[in-house]
């Protein structure tokens, strides 16, 4: 999660504790920060929007200007155009699709507005000033290692490994699956079956119900997203199956509580923290005010920041619980 000191500057992002260690939190020139993200129809994205807004509120020198979140590319382009017209001082953009919004991000940069690219990356480096995001590939790797190692230790050969993806057309889904596959390969394992859900409880439930029918014996399951994981767990409980263990993704508070209780098949989850939105707002402020990150030697904010994906298990869940987002 992003409050690791290495990743962002100097304050734990989600909690509104503005404990300034350097001078960066001192009020500076007033800046207007525009913000655009996909529609908050999903716990993780909702947490993104909320974190961004909460962080912006901590700073009296930020005027926060969010625009209508939408899942329609065309509308998001318009939304960003309107922010450019409004001549904001910095833009924080979580595009529906980096490639498709690349052009309008370029236009913003050309108009002299620094773009902080959040999570889904623009292909063109000229399109943004700084990128901050999670490591989707790394998330798959983390899940793959957890599952691979555990099965190896158990001495299972030819394990049945089931993967429940998120929305299949998103590049992030493809990255996660790739990482998962690559990590498993190092143990000589491969994915037996994978199906995509829509990041919602209900679709997770539906897909899991059928997958459980398709495979009478499962050894391990990775579910990309803890939001849809609630539905997946309900389906597993309904079926009464417990011969396998499951790893989640994203790190919602709910998943962490399940892990802590230890009463279900969910043993671990790999993080992809929405705290990155808080960091992005802070970065946007620093960039707009021409400041650097006081913990680093560099005089300017770095060009790209990748959050690490961590594995949460019963052993360390205590530590992460306060950072989990309520999905």
């Amino acid at each position, binding site marked *: 999660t992003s409050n690791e000191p290495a990743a962002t500057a100097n304050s734990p992002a989600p909690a509104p504790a503005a404990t300034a260690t350097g001078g960066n939190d001192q009020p500076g020139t007033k800046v207007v920060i525009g913000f655009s993200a996909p529609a*908050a*129809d*999903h*716990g993780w994205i*909702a947490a993104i929007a909320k974190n961004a807004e909460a962080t912006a509120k901590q700073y009296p020198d930020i005027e926060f200007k969010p625009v209508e979140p939408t899942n329609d590319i065309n509308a998001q382009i318009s939304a960003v155009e309107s922010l450019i017209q409004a001549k904001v001082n910095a833009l924080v953009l979580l595009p529906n699709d980096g490639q498709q919004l690349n052009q309008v991000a370029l236009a913003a940069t050309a108009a002299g507005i620094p773009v902080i690219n959040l999570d889904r990356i623009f292909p063109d480096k000229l399109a943004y000033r700084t990128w901050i995001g999670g490591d989707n590939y790394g998330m798959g790797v983390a899940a793959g290692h957890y599952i691979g190692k555990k099965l190896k230790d158990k001495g299972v050969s030819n394990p049945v490994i089931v993967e429940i993806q998120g929305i*299949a057309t998103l590049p992030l889904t493809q990255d996660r699956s790739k990482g998962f596959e690559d990590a498993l390969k190092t143990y000589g394992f491969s994915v037996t*079956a*994978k*199906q*995509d859900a*829509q990041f*919602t*409880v*209900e679709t997770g*439930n*539906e*897909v899991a*119900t*059928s*997958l*459980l*029918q*398709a495979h*009478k014996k499962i050894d391990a399951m990775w579910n990309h997203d803890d*939001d849809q994981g*609630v*539905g997946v*767990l*309900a*389906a597993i*409980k*309904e*079926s009464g199956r417990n011969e396998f263990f499951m790893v989640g993704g994203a790190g919602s508070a*709910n998943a962490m509580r399940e892990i802590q209780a230890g009463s279900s098949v969910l043993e671990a989850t790999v993080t992809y923290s929405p705290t990155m939105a808080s960091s992005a707002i802070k970065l946007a402020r620093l960039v707009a005010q021409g400041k650097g990150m006081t913990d680093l030697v560099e005089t300017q904010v770095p060009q790209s920041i990748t959050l690490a994906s961590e594995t949460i298990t019963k052993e360390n869940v205590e530590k992460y619980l306060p950072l989990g987002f*309520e*999905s």
Partner: protein
Amino acid sequence: MTSPDLKKAAPSGLLGRTGLTGLGQARHLGLVAALVLLAAVGLVTRPDTFATTSNLVSILSLAATIGVITVGMTFVIIGGGIDLSVGAIMALASVWATTLATQEFGPFVMVLCALLVGTGAGLVNGLLISYGRLVPFIATLAMLVAARGLAQRMSDRKTQLVQAENTALVELSTTRWLGIPLLVFIFALVVALGWVVLNRTTFGRRTYAVGGNPEAARLAGINVRRHTMLLYALSGLCCGIAAVLIMARTTTGSSTHGDLYELDAIAAVIIGGTLLTGGRGTIIGSILGLLIFTLITNLFILNGLNTSDQLIAKGLIIVVAVLLQRRNLKERTL
């Protein structure tokens, strides 16, 4: 014209007397044929898993939620309307019933709450359409966006878990009777009730009249507006029941529940032979239509097809299924 000729045309059978004869049966034959075909594919491709009880039960459990909604939708469409707000109303009802404030009162009140919220939202639809004179497409579209918005506000966009003390609700999905989860029985009950109301009561008969020719129905002394309003309330009630089922299944209430259910339900109704112009259709047809969709998805997942191929195949299967029950151009509408 001689009497033997007439006998030929006179239908016999289950649906014979409803006025939806011959044709109706032939239609259902087509659907049944499509189902049998799909089942055969299942048996061939996954002989080990497809025909197991647990798989069949799981198909029915999957169909239950949307199945209940489909029953209400069948009424609305036969009555000449359409309801785009079903998924959103279900979401709203599930969220309302799972707020902490509601959950305090226990599972019974939660169920009651879901049913009331569903019926209430349906009633608003009905009022807008019959007394506000909005076209159903627009009124229920407005309800769709507004209900989802309200559900998001109420839940603060979070997934609301059914609390531990209310697990009685969840037991609808986990408790089995004769090996079949209770929610499947609820589904069956709703279908049976829907069939009875549509085919054996004045309410059902009026629904056909109101949808088939509203002006004629009005001049025959039917209170078309009130009836229309009741149809949407009925659909809302079905959404409320569906909300209970989805809460039981997923152990949650969420503003994301039921996304795009409206399309699935409408498609099931229409594949089942109900015309979008109203005045015709059967509950059995709609349920068969829905089972076709559910079976397709089940088969794909059992066989581990990827989504893109699934989509292509789904398109083709829909076309083939409907060609099996080809309909002539005169009856063409939407």
